[in-house]
């Protein structure tokens, strides 16, 4: 089983954009530079699949928190889906998930929790979202309508795992299909969810580039980060 280490998305992006080896020169001071359209080719080459962002609160969503800490997230999602989530400190170097991880955000209410706030920002104010949940999107830079799914069983780790594996299986299938047919992944994924009678919300026509830049700024101000579970091999 993969051990639960997390690493900042920023470090991953810097690594993808830097030549080998990445030294101090490969570090990027401005987050805008990472999401610059000139990097499109390099980003597509290194992050060829799709993305997901988990919106959960470590205080109230115990099952998801345990599931994330267990470290199976990246093997469950597979190579084609990079799952991201917020972390309560900056982790530009791999950091192990421990029992005390997320503790500094335990006392935050759900209305101000960074994870929930970032998900909500992809939707119109009138849309009522049930948390916790996971939002899927296709690209770092383009405008798109992300797909959000509420995770119902949030108190039991095993139930969360089962539900997540089910969603990842559908998403992977939709990704394969989009790759083969050159159709929009999010549309195919939404259709597949409909077929499985899984309720979802489609977000605004969001510029993911702008969303990421705002998210990093928002989190940097709180010395926190967007991270993914470390996976070593393709």
């Amino acid at each position, binding site marked *: 089983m993969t051990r639960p280490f997390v*690493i900042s998305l920023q470090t991953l992006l810097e690594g*993808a954009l830097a030549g*080998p*080896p990445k*030294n101090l020169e490969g570090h990027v001071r401005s987050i805008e530079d990472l999401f610059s359209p000139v990097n499109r080719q390099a980003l597509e080459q290194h992050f060829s699949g799709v993305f997901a962002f988990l919106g959960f609160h470590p205080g109230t969503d115990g099952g998801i928190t345990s599931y994330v800490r267990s470290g199976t997230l990246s093997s469950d999602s597979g190579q084609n889906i990079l799952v991201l989530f917020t972390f309560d400190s900056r982790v530009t*170097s*791999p950091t*192990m998930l421990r029992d005390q991880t997320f503790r500094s955000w335990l006392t935050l209410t759900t209305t101000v929790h960074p994870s929930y706030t970032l998900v909500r920002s992809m939707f119109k104010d009138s849309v009522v979202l049930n948390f916790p949940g996971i939002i899927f999107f296709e690209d770092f830079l383009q405008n798109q309508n992300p797909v959000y799914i509420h995770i119902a069983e949030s108190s039991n780790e095993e139930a969360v795992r089962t539900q997540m594996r089910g969603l990842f299986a559908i998403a992977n299938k939709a990704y394969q299909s989009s790759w083969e047919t050159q159709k929009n992944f999010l549309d195919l994924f939404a259709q597949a969810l409909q077929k499985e009678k899984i309720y979802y919300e489609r977000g605004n026509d969001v510029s993911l580039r702008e969303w990421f830049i705002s998210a990093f700024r928002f989190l940097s101000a709180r010395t926190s980060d967007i991270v993914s579970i470390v996976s070593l*091999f*393709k």
Partner: protein
Amino acid sequence: MKLGSEQHHFPLKGQIQDLVELAFQEIRAFGVFSSHVRPTRKCFEEYIQNHITDINALIQTAEEHRNLIPGNNSRPILYNYRSWPENAPLAGYYTFESGIKYSHLLTTYVANWHYESSNGPLHSRLLRAALYVWCSKDLNYCVNYIFDLQKYGYFMIPEAIEQVIALLIRSQVLGKSSQEVISAYFKGKIPLSSSDWLTWEIEEPSKLLEGLDPVNVQPLLEPLIFDTLEELECARDLNIPEEWLLEQSAAMLRCRTILILCSRFLEEDLRTVALKSILDQFDEIAADAGIYMWYQHRPKFAPLSSPMSMQIAPILWSFRQKLGEEGEARLYQERLLYPSVLREQIALSDGETFPQEWSIIPPRLLWPFAMSINQGHLDPAGRTRPFPPEQVEQVLEVRNFFEKSGINLQEDRIRLLNEIYLGKVPDAWKTGGSPGVQLSDEQSTQLTSILQESHRSFCLKELIEENLNTIYRRNDLGKEEQERILKKVSVLYPWSPAVYLELAIYHDENGNHLLAWDYILTTLLLYPNYNAGWHAASIILGRLGNDAEADFAWAVYTVTKKGAGK
């Protein structure tokens, strides 16, 4: 009741054991440091003769009279041909039942280093031990064991470690079971007894020339990489300078070995972006060991500063230039240059100032550091700061040199002393002005040699004549005055066993026996045969209520006293 018998089976673990464990920390450090900068044969032999021999004598005595046995089950063990208990496992990890003693382990260390010092990498013993461990467990366990041998300093040439691990990885093609693999090395048979394992000839199987599917390497490399990340995290949490210096050095070695294995067995297109980032980080961490090379060019009179105290300021400056406010946080997380306990101090001082204990080579690692990285230059009377150039210029030999060289202006002399004695960048480099009077290479060498002698005699005069002798000779010295002198010499001469002895005596007499024992530990690590140290140790142990160990220390004192008299 058979108390005597029980005492024999359950030896007391006490302060003497603490001393021996610290001695093993030092031994371990010599192997680790030497893996970065291999000592010359002369340095190695001096280390063994002048220091390890004394530690060995102490261990043998403690084993005989105190029934001392190792207490750490995570310690890797490795056989030697000179002394190894008959029924003990040849390799693996220490267990109480094995009957292995500290002296057996020390013999292995010295035998390994001796071989490497004379003949180069020691593959044969390492491979035999690795196959032995693989035979009883599996390849993952075996590779972890080899990494632990490296971490514990059993070898001072890292190539053997790297090559044997690579050979073991390739050996997976020899069979599905460990038995199949092992027998391929021993003409189709499995060694059964220790004697078989030690004497049967090992043949590298010809099948190893075949390729290995990269996918077989991933389950092995993955835990090794994650373990390395964990070790980096653990090292950052250390708050004792000698532990930090040792673990940092061992982690740098490990990063290097992992990089070599990945470059050999893992094609680029199989690596995720996360792995690429991790390996780039390992590369930077391993490269930071380059600071050790600086010590090769260090003049003998320069203070023995810690690598971090010389390294951090310019790197932190670069990180801050590039990354602004986040620079310190990223430097801390992405490299292994300082522990968390120093973050605030480093951030506030731009990496320029450190608490004294972090700015110098820790005294408990003076011997291994000096005899490996510092090229054999060991001076227990070394000073943490140079003397003012104006004071050095007054020394007769220095004045004679300047007169003979025709350098008569005071300002020229001071400028040259600033450059050569203090190691400052010449002013002319900064201002672009006239460089002033210059010395030829020959003159520079001559002045350096004179300065070395002058500096040392200044140090001895200050340490012994002006300070310690005051304590030795004057019984009426008040507590405050004694404390003032001790504080001064412990800041200026932190590698002197005599200073730690006086600190121990002072604190013991003032009722702080545990602190006194801590100082005595440093005294005896710096000078294991110091009979005055053993005298004080005996008194302190008695005051700590450990009569048996106090008697032992007294016995060592009487033996070392006789030795000192010869």
